[in-house]
């Protein structure tokens, strides 16, 4: 498959998402909405005693781009502190995806990153 956007990695993550689960106990939870897709995502984060992410889960419905991005960002932040998560930039998120994101799809690509960032700032 030589599709620039729907690369195998993106499609794999869409079909087999990472960390797509409900946490039984968590430190913080946030529901977020992507007005372009009209979709809802719920993210949950559990911190350990050292203030590092012990577990993270996300649920909801979304397009291939938003779902792949959610898988990537949730995997990336495991073991990180709140401050380290806040330090992850938009560029970092987009380079993790590694695909050309059009203006119309930017909200999909950044849904998880945005949600997580505002969750951390609210802590």
């Amino acid at each position, binding site marked *: *498959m030589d*599709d620039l*956007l*729907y690369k195998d990695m993106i*499609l794999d993550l*869409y*079909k087999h998402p990472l960390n797509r689960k409900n946490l039984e106990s968590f430190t913080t939870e946030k529901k977020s909405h992507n007005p*372009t*897709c*009209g*979709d*809802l995502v719920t993210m949950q984060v559990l911190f350990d005693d050292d203030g590092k992410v012990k577990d993270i889960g996300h649920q909801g*419905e*979304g*397009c*291939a*781009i*938003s*779902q792949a991005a959610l898988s990537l960002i949730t995997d990336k932040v495991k073991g990180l502190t709140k401050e380290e998560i806040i330090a992850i930039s938009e560029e970092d998120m987009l380079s993790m995806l590694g695909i050309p994101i059009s203006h*119309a*799809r930017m909200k*999909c690509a950044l849904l998880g990153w945005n949600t997580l960032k505002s969750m951390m700032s609210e802590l």
Partner: protein
Amino acid sequence: MKDSLKQYFPLYTSSPDLAYFDTGASALKPQVVIDKIREYYSSYGVNIHRGLYEASDRATTEHDNAREIVATFINAEPEEIVFIYGTTHGLNMLATSLGQELKKGDNIVLTAWEHHANLIPWQQIAKNTGAELRFVDIDDDYQLDIEDAKKKIDSNTKIVSFGHVSNTLGSLAPAKELIALAKQVQAITIIDAAQSIVHLKTDVKKLDVDFLVFSGHKLYGPTGIGVLYGKKEKLAQLSPVMFGGDMILDVSYDSAEWNDVPYRFESGTPNIAGAIGLGAAVKFIESIGLQHIQERETKLTSYLINQLSSLPNVQIIGSSNPSKHHGVISIHIPGIHTHDIAEILNRHNVAIRVGSHCAMPLMKKLGLPGGTARFSVGMYNDEKDVDTAMTSLKEAIDIFK
């Protein structure tokens, strides 16, 4: 279809390969509408009413003409036509005004397929007054269940308001039956004609409906203009909810008397260019012939549904009978989010609309959290557009297989 109508729409000059399937959101504008708006702004672009000079007199005359053109189009009288900003505005006006009379114990009957514009205003009224909201359900063929309507409409029903054609399913409401049921209990009837006005001949007298609302931009007219039709005696009983200039007869520091119907509902300087442009749009439709448009669209809808049904895994969210679709065909492809469908179609210059179509409760009811991918047709669509759409849909299916 050899007799293309695309030539009348200048957007096809700049984008000749565009396969536009989003008329349900907004129809493209023909050159004559653009010319008419330009003519207003360049030749007599001033305010209407009481301007005792030539340009204002012309603007007033053109604005009045537009009201007459629209009235004739739906078989109403000019004084029954209130110019508004769009369907949402009209439904909010009606809910706000009629809602003042409601109390606990009363009920408002809507349908399961309402656009948010015909749901949320009533939700607000229900919250404020304690009135109950009821929803006529849909059956397995995505049509309104008239037997359910008979149960929902009762002696406490004060308002029956429904979308004439579902903007998601394309189904047509049994308007006459619903209105007859409402009349038995003296309920006020309202039709949201946003989706039907462009596809079906609308005759308010035959429908015998109290109020009917639609938007100009879905009727090949400009944005920011719409129409609230009300029976003369019903408009006379309706309290205005927006106040200011032009809607008054006499004013003192303490009180005001309302102007005649329909002017009492048109406070402030209206969208003059919009109304005049809408008049031009209606004249354009009449010159092509609504029946001719309808025949073309029916044929094309059939072709589109047949083609869609031949693709693997594509589910039509709506009746399997093409004749029960009025300009709208929604699909769901398991395993492909609607947004990804739209993205891949856009690569081939195919414009569709995806998501919940401002009908979130219906999407939840149908178990479609990602909504549907919606094709909506206009007079300009042809089989080539459908073929392009099919090629791109096949590509989407292939990418996600």
